């Protein structure tokens, strides 16, 4: 069930009504039933599988909590189990074809389709949450959850299941015990989050996704530099609005149930350094990586190399953390490169601090901040190339932008002849004119972020006069209606992780 459909809206009405009307002792049963119901709309195997994973981790947590010795072993068993599950399903594309080939050679006729279908949705998100749970229990930051029902709601909670945010059990589970009261503020905030999310997903991300020609990302050298540049910007805003839109919708939906979810994005493209970018982009993953990879690794290295400026201490923690981030997105060279690039950016950014004290960005002149913003944005956008395509194609795409010979003359004459009906349309890309439709979407998308960034409030709209809000909402509804008449819709980009 796609969360931008009317079917999901109807499903939510039923879930919220049940959750609020049932006596408190039945509420969590109802919530788990809703989670399972949501999963059943995808495949019953997902529900069974995730329930098994949840139950295994539930018992692992209890075992870890009760154990007096060999606790570290239990923790590693748990981590290994979760990573094994992830490897089995997520990276099946690597080994299933070979496995199938072996079976065929043995005379067993099999299709890899069935195996691939079993890849449960949001497994990467589930696995990192479970690892954090076991680690927190091991560190005794968290008592093992004794209630199977609540623990499995934490694992299967449908708003965050597909694409996060990645929640910590110690923060999430207590919210299930709170009485489900709603404030007018919470209702307003939840609806605003849903509307902003729908705008980001349906008006920005889906439209940009439809505007991007697939061939540009497979044969970039067939296009002029100015077109490639605009499409790369479109891709950057598409992936951001797709994911941020999704998170915004699920936060709003969960807010209506009275269960607050972590904010995952905070206008990341206005960051003034790559380190700041990661504090604003996919925040729940960044926090997870910081707490479970960066800090433990830094502490481990500091024990071996006490000098904080030792090259190992300086380079390894950010690089390894970002490589893990790349691997979490998928086991491929290009995603490792993407993570590696971000790691390298962060290392280079820190180099000046080796000889001069760090000056806070807020204290720097405005022009320096603006330049830093532009520079960071350029670096981040360039890194999307290996995220989107294989290394060779990314290299070609990059060359296509920076080589002066690819900045081709724009043929406005040809275009005007077509508009006058004197020439057939033919290949519009041969005009070398960047697609103006991209700008039509990019400008409002940037404007939305700018308003949120300037006011340091993602829901600044709620402070606007009532009639302005109503007019804006009416305009958004009308726009959504018009866009809904298009012939196809794109799936969430982050759904595959």
């Amino acid at each position, binding site marked *: 069930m796609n969360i931008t459909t009317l079917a999901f809206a109807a499903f939510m009405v039923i879930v919220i009504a049940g959750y609020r*009307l049932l006596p408190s002792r039945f509420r969590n049963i109802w919530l788990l039933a809703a989670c399972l119901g949501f999963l059943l709309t995808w495949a019953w195997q997902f529900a069974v599988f995730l329930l098994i994973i949840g139950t295994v981790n539930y018992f692992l947590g209890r075992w870890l909590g009760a154990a007096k010795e060999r606790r570290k072993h239990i923790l590693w068993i748990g981590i290994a189990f979760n990573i094994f599950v992830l490897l089995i399903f997520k990276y099946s594309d690597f080994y299933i074809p070979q496995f199938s080939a072996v079976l065929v050679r043995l005379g067993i006729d099999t299709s890899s389709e069935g195996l691939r279908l079993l890849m449960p949705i949001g497994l990467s998100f589930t696995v990192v949450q479970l690892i954090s749970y076991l680690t927190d229990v091991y560190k005794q930051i968290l008592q093992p959850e004794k209630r199977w029902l609540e623990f499995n709601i934490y694992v299967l909670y449908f708003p965050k299941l597909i694409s996060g945010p990645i929640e910590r059990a110690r923060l999430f589970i207590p919210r299930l015990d709170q*009485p489900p*009261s709603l404030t007018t503020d919470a209702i307003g905030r939840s609806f605003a989050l849903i509307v902003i999310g729908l705008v980001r997903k349906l008006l920005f991300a889906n439209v940009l996704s439809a505007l991007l*020609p697939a061939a540009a990302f497979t044969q970039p050298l067939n296009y002029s530099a100015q077109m490639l540049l605009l499409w790369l910007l479109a891709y950057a805003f598409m992936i951001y609005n797709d994911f941020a839109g999704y998170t915004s919708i699920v936060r709003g939906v969960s807010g209506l149930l009275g269960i607050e979810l972590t904010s995952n994005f905070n206008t990341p493209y206005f960051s003034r350094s790559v380190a700041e970018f990661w504090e604003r982009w996919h925040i729940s993953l960044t926090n997870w990586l910081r707490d479970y990879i960066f800090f433990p690794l830094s502490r481990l290295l500091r024990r071996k190399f006490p000098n904080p400026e030792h090259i190992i201490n300086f380079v390894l923690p950010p690089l390894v953390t970002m490589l893990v981030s790349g691997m979490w997105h998928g086991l491929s060279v290009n995603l490792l490169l993407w993570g590696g690039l971000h790691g390298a950016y962060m290392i280079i950014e820190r180099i000046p601090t080796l000889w001069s004290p760090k000056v806070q960005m807020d204290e720097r002149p405005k022009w320096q901040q603006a330049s830093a913003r532009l520079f960071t944005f350029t670096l981040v956008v360039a890194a999307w190339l290996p995220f989107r395509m294989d290394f060779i194609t990314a290299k070609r795409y990059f060359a296509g932008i920076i080589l002066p010979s690819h900045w081709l003359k724009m043929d406005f004459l040809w275009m005007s002849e077509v508009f006058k009906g004197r020439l*057939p349309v033919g290949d519009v890309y041969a005009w070398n004119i960047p697609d103006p*439709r991209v700008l039509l979407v990019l400008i409002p998308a940037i404007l939305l972020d700018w308003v949120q960034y300037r006011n340091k409030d993602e829901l600044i709209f709620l402070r606007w006069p*009532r009639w302005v809000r109503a007019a804006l909402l009416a305009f958004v509804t*009308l726009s959504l209606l018009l866009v809904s*008449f298009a*012939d196809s819709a794109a799936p969430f980009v982050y759904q595959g992780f």
Partner: protein
Amino acid sequence: MTDINLGNRDGIESPARKHAIRGLGVTLLQTVAFFLLFAVLLEGLARTSLVRELLPYMTFGSWHYQLDLKWLLLKQYVAENGGMDVIVVGNSLVDTGVVPEVIAQTYFEKTGVKLRVFNFGIGGLTVSPTSENAKLLVDTYHPALLIFVTEMRDYDATNGIRTETKYLSDSWMQYQMGNFNPKGWLVDHSVTLQHYLPYRNWMRNDFPSTFASYLGTYHATSATGYEGDLAELTADKIPNPSTSDSNPYFSSSQPYQIDPTRLVCLGTILDLARNGGTRIIVVEMPVHPMFFEFAGGKAIHEAFKEKIAETVRSGGGIFLPATEEVAIPLDGRANLTHLNWKGAPIFSAYLGARLAGLTSQDGMMFISKQNEGGQR
């Protein structure tokens, strides 16, 4: 911050709760009011001549843009001519093979009566979706005569299923077929949407080329629904089943058979005559003889003709099989099935003459009763 415990079922309505809900309600009402205001403003603007001139293309956003085009052209034609006498339905063979002006002219020359004829041929349709078109057209325009131009593939069970499914599942088409749905209703009633829908895929990267092909069809189609085909079949290009690797016309894995469910659809078309003043004529398209070789030979074609003739007869219609009377030269064909701009007038003149024959010999009149007071 006001707390609204929606789970509170004690029946006590606190003033704060009432106030908070009223606040949300006011915002919602204002939103609806603004939405209606925007919609009314846009609708008013869309109905001005300025917008009509700026955005001349209108559609219902259906999957098959030729349906939109023909429906709007027909509507325009009826508005300009005060009604409709003869509508020709079928697939692309009709679209490119029937010139309404030639039918009307031939008929006029032989009877002195001027008919208003429209070509409602839509590419890719078999008898099944065509029967739905026929129902819609008869219900809406009450023509005196409905001509269904058919050929063997109309009754092949494996032919045109995907097109039919997509064509008939369209919201606007469903609404026209009497199955109410909000989207269909909205599209049917909103001129704003009808102006917007040709551009509805503006965000797709293939939009410039698809829109260009839509415009191409729009400009190539006459006010009476005829779209001329410029392609020309030459002797060296005639495909032959004995030398062809595959059968492009029929499912080659099985011998040709008439699908009984498709015959029911033909019956549906014939039944339209029972409800009122519309007469039904079923005409076989004069395809190239080699086409029948792909169907399995002349005998199979003869059996087909017999079955169709029998069905049409029992349904109270008139069947005009393709005979050698319609001599289409090779250069009058675009391929084995379609006529081109040279062949279409020959076939249309034949149709006009046959209608005139039916009028003079059998006294059949093809002027719509509703339109008798029209401009004649």
